[in-house]
């Protein structure tokens, strides 16, 4: 285990060290102490290593992550795991705005609540939030799944493309072109797997409703202009 204390080590040195790790790296386990809300902690990692951040982080923690398993033992600021490619990011506390924005792969687990625009413009990432999510989540979401065990705020899935949204609690309102859809067997199966990967036991896929695109705004029609 390699331990880096951000109280005494600059962020640049931490990220440089992490970027040096490649497939088959000897130093597979990392621990980061005293993040104290620092931005871009463990951004751009590209190796199958595990990084445990012992405290809360600022903006863009684990940004563009590839392969790594990064756990924040605290809360995360805006844009956590933005544009993640693969790997797994777990936030033990809450996450601020834009969690998992534009993510293209991997799994983001938020054990607390997520703020507004969670999963904005997501492109393949899977996001699971144990608590609630804020307004405008999954805005223009292209692909991947957003699973919410709690409630969703206003305008969920506004202008959504092909992403799948599963919400167990209440949805305050749906955004333009987002509708409730039938939970078919394949959706129960996929959702069950995601819950298992996130380690959320005792929750059944049958408790969720599925939301997705009505596909009415995919091609412009003047008579739909009031939907925007």
């Amino acid at each position: 285990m390699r331990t880096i204390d951000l109280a005494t080590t600059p962020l640049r040195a931490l990220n440089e060290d992490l970027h040096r790790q490649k497939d088959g790296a000897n130093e597979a386990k990392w621990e980061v102490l005293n993040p104290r809300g620092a931005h871009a902690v463990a951004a751009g990692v590209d190796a199958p290593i595990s990084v445990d951040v012992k405290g809360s982080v600022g903006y863009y923690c684990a940004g563009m992550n590839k392969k790594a398993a990064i756990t924040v033992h605290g809360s995360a600021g805006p844009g956590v795991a933005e544009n993640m490619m693969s790997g797994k990011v777990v936030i033990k506390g809450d996450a601020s705005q834009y969690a998992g924005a534009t993510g293209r792969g991997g799994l983001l687990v938020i054990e607390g609540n997520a703020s507004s625009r969670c999963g904005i413009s997501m492109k393949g990432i899977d996001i699971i939030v144990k608590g609630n999510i804020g307004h405008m989540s999954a805005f223009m979401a292209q692909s991947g799944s957003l699973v919410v065990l709690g409630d969703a705020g206003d305008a969920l899935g506004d202008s959504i493309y092909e992403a799948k949204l599963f919400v167990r609690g209440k949805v305050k309102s749906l955004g333009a072109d987002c509708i409730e859809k039938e939970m078919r067997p394949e959706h129960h199966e996929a959702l069950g797997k995601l819950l298992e990967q996130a380690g959320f036991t005792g929750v059944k896929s049958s408790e969720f409703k599925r939301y997705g695109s009505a596909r009415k705004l995919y091609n412009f029609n003047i008579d739909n202009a009031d939907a925007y």
Partner: protein
Amino acid sequence: MTYHNPPTTPRKSWTFDDYTLSEIRRAAATGIYDIRGGGAKRRVPHFDDLLFLGASISRYALEGYREKCSTSVTLGTRFAKKPIELKIPITIAGMSFGALSAQAKEALGRGATIAGTSTTTGDGGMTPEERGQSQTLVYQYLPSRYGMNPDDLRKADAIEVVVGQGAKPGGGGMLLGQKISDRVAEMRNLPKGIDQRSACRHPDWTGPDDLEIKLLEIREITNWEKPIYIKVGGTRPYYDTALAVKAGADVIVLDGMQGGTAATQEVFIENVGLPTLACIRPAVQALQDLGMHRKVQLIVSGGIRTGADAAKALALGADAVSIGMAAMAALGDNDPSLNEEYAKLHTAAGSYDDWHEGRDPAGITTQDPELSKRLDPVKAGRRLANYLKVMTLEIQTVARAAGHNNIHNLEPEDLCALTLEAAAMARVPLAGTNWIPGQGQGGL
């Protein structure tokens, strides 16, 4: 003799001219606003309204062809470990694969590389063709983040965070269904054939304070190697430039309303944003006020066509210029040799701007495999290189005539204006006077 009253000559309205009436009829028939490519077509004060004074007794000219006049430029000297060195001060603006064919992107890379300058990706990610053929490639970081990934980010020579562009400041990208081919759809994670309207704001930052942190993240991911550009449309150039500097830009790209786009609403192109000429001096003033002129480089784009235009932009304080539509014309866009085919599309060479429909007979703004094949990337790249070299010679010619051995020594004092408007916007005297309208009025 019978007297006939003279007939009244039919008089057309200046307000309701033929074009305006045709647009009303078109809107009534189709129920959709006009979408087109290109930049503003209306006449606005431009570089044509400025003249160089040249040398005489008060200035000492340099000998053409014999005395050296440097043209190189270094971009990204503020923070980047690896600034970009270009042989000429003309770059190729961001144009996406999707908007352009793969052949056209390859041709841009080839031409730019021969001439010693950079080309730029667009709203669709980086293709192997353009990376392979571009010695210096700027990777755009756009609100849509289509195709964005850390590997391509690290393969780039510079990164351009696009906040806006001159043709549609405040608007997002648009790529209509006809051009969402299998490859384009895959690169953008979108269903094939949909009308794709990408976001106008970035998904994970909102203001200059956030942007500063976003730049930190990009720099951390790319090891602080790459120059980071911030591109803005011409709207409030003094403040946008100052905020881009504050956020940590290495380079600012400022695009006026004549700058082209692949497709957007006509109402946007013609009615939103500032003419390029009006953008430069406020941006330079902001850099000077912050003590950052020449430390944060300024690239100006939007309607640059000739070496004279480029030289005038440099004289007003830019470090380089960028071309998009002119580069497309050099490749073969809107060539009169294709007039028969343009006629079938109800248009003519010089007017063709329905680039979003993907039926470009020149094979440039299309994803149709048969049309795309018409463009030979090697020959088209050579044409672009020739054009860039001619522009560079023109800049040198003007600079030598003004007594400068380096094109970056061109200065506002080398210029005068032909119109009051141009004099006020460029902040140079009206020709034959020492009058600069608007000075002392506090205009930004």
